[in-house]
């Protein structure tokens, strides 16, 4: 195949070599997640993202490699939304007056209404994991970053619904290898979460206690079922926010950048379903070639469109995320 496959061993080896070379050259690369949760409007209405959300606000270049799209579990009245309805949502990105994937589809049947390219048509590769865990897990294959000796990760999570009667297990794992020993490392922590409050997993779970730096290559987030439920099937869409920040080296800044103008959204916590670019339940589009390079201040705009005239999507929310990495030189 012509595009990069993050799951391939060859690619994993390649990025590990890049990470090691970066360490020698003094280049810091760190994952970045730009996300927005956009409420759909009336049928066929084009709705903008929050202003300034998809913008590089840092002093160094950012490369965007993936776009992920998924419906939020709850609509604006806290009612559950059928995830299959994502097939009736369109998306368009705009960058310096260029559109991606295009401005409008040809649409000979809907009269004068112009439609964005529907979201499932953006997917290029299968991202399904085993059915037993597929609904509960997202795997984020990111640019490797160096977790230096005695560094730790701050990992925050929150749910999308406040109900003190329901308790869920949220688990986060990070995989990597030792920069010197080449041994595998698996940093893992979990926490019980019951409401929409931001909660922090114990940093002890994500601390590099060893004597060597760890090159972390991917991160897994999962949400189990309500702990007293007889049905053990979890739902990753329940985690409306997950955030990461390296304590010690690195940029020291949150990986997650979201809208700051919406009181319902925490700008440093991205929906966990949006991080599933390797496996998960989001539609994943890998940008061609090396992706999109954002200089400081650069950015794009996203527009979504409700393409369901039946009204089932009224008030539903779409999570759009751009995944990539920053390079600090």
């Amino acid at each position, binding site marked *: 195949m012509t595009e990069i496959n993050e799951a391939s061993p060859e690619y994993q080896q390649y990025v590990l070599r890049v990470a090691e070379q970066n360490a020698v050259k003094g280049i810091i690369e760190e994952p970045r997640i730009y996300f927005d949760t956009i409420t759909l409007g009336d049928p066929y209405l084009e709705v903008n993202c929050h202003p300034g959300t998809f913008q590089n606000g840092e002093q160094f270049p950012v490369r965007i490699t993936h776009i992920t799209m998924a419906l939020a579990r709850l609509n604006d009245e806290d009612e559950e939304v059928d995830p299959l309805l994502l*097939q009736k949502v369109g998306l368009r990105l705009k960058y310096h007056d260029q559109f*991606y994937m295009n401005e409008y589809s040809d649409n000979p049947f809907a009269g004068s209404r112009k439609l964005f390219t529907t979201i499932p048509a953006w997917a290029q590769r299968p991202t399904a994991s085993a059915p037993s865990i597929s609904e509960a897990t997202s795997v984020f294959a990111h640019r490797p970053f160096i977790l230096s000796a005695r560094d730790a990760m701050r990992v925050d999570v929150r749910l999308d619904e406040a109900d003190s009667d329901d308790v869920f297990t949220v688990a986060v794992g990070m995989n990597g290898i030792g920069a010197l020993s080449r041994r595998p490392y698996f940093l893992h922590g979990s926490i019980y979460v019951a409401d929409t409050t931001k909660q922090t997993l114990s940093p002890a779970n994500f601390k590099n206690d060893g004597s060597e730096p760890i090159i972390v290559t991917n991160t897994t987030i999962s949400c189990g079922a309500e702990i007293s439920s007889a049905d053990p099937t979890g739902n990753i869409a329940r985690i409306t926010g997950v955030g990461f920040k390296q304590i010690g080296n690195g940029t020291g800044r949150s990986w997650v950048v979201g809208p700051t103008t919406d009181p319902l959204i925490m700008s440093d916590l991205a929906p966990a379903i949006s991080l599933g670019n390797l496996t998960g339940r989001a539609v994943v589009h890998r940008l061609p070639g090396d992706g999109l390079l954002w200089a400081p201040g650069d950015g794009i705009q996203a527009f979504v469109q409700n393409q369901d005239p039946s009204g089932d999507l009224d008030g539903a929310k779409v999570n759009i995320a751009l995944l990539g990495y920053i390079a600090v030189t």
Partner: protein
Amino acid sequence: MRPNVDPKDATSAGVWFEPRSLWCVKNVILDDYAIGEGGSFGPTLTIPLQRNAFRNGTRFPFQVQRIAISAVGYPLARPDVLGMQAADNAAGPANLNGTCALARVTFQVSSPFRQQWSRTVVSGNGLAPLPTYTPNVPAADSGKSSLFGLNSLMFDRPLIIPRNGAVEWSMSSLQGMRWAAGAGGTVSAFNLPSTDLPMTMSYLEKGGLFCGSARSSRVNLRTNQSPIAPVPGDDSGFPYALPPGFVPMVGGSGNVPFWDPTSTFDASSFRTKNATKAGSTNIYGMTLAIDQTAFDTGVLAQFTDGVVAPVSQRIGTRVRVVGGPATDYWWRPGAPAALVFDTITPAAVFQLDEPITLEPGDSLDVSLAVPAASSFVDGGVTVSQATAASYQFGVSFNGFAAITG
């Protein structure tokens, strides 16, 4: 057939690559075959597929990368066992009346006078298939076909379209169906839903300020409500025969041709979508998103215990480049979308460890074997097995052609 030559070596020599597929859909009706000695088929019936379907009839070498196999024409993936029991007597067991019957088929591939791809028959689910499907649907949507309704084909080699070139891509209509078993079953006769299904056809491109773009067309997948009954037992491809218990839709009013012009992303639309690009276009894949959620709901209202199959296993496709060095269709028109769009697909797809190249005129021999007798004797022991009155499967060999001159 010869060992693979790395096509990257040819890139600088001006070689043009286009996706290609050789395919065949075979409808097997056991009654059409003569019973052998002893008054029985034996455990299985082996049927050779048309050799012409797997012959490279072009002037260019065709490199096979993958094999896809799928049941074709079934509206259900896993049948409604209770609702379809009526077919037990009339048309075979209900549990083989869906795309899941693929698990009962075996196939064998060889090249005439040369070698076999496998020395023994290969089970339809016996090889290690690639992960090719979308995530499972949640429990609340149990029985629906798919989370995203998507098929995609990412090209093995980029397709370079010249400045004035274009691609022409047509999708067939759906054949209207009616569940006719009625008597004895728990589900009365009914027409399957025939409302138009929204369908988005997209080409993915590289290049430009935004590192890529796409040309997409949103059309409706239409159902032919007055179809002519296809010829059973024919393996010419389309319209695909109907599975046991189903007949052409009755009482419908819309007579839609197999190649409905409104389901075509034609060359002029292709050019219109990107009129400003100065040079050639690098296309790296195509996606086909079919929103069949309304169809699924309609089918499940009747077959409450069933699982609906993606309609990409029931519709044909054809694609060709216009204004390029080769204007052949990429595959014989009518190939089921699930067989040729094989990156995301409900078909089972196997990657060849080492690609094989079919030179012009080369062909492959492909045979399918299906369970034939309801019982057979093995070592003095009588073994019973389920068998149906008919089966329908498709096989495709997918890769690309290297075009010169």
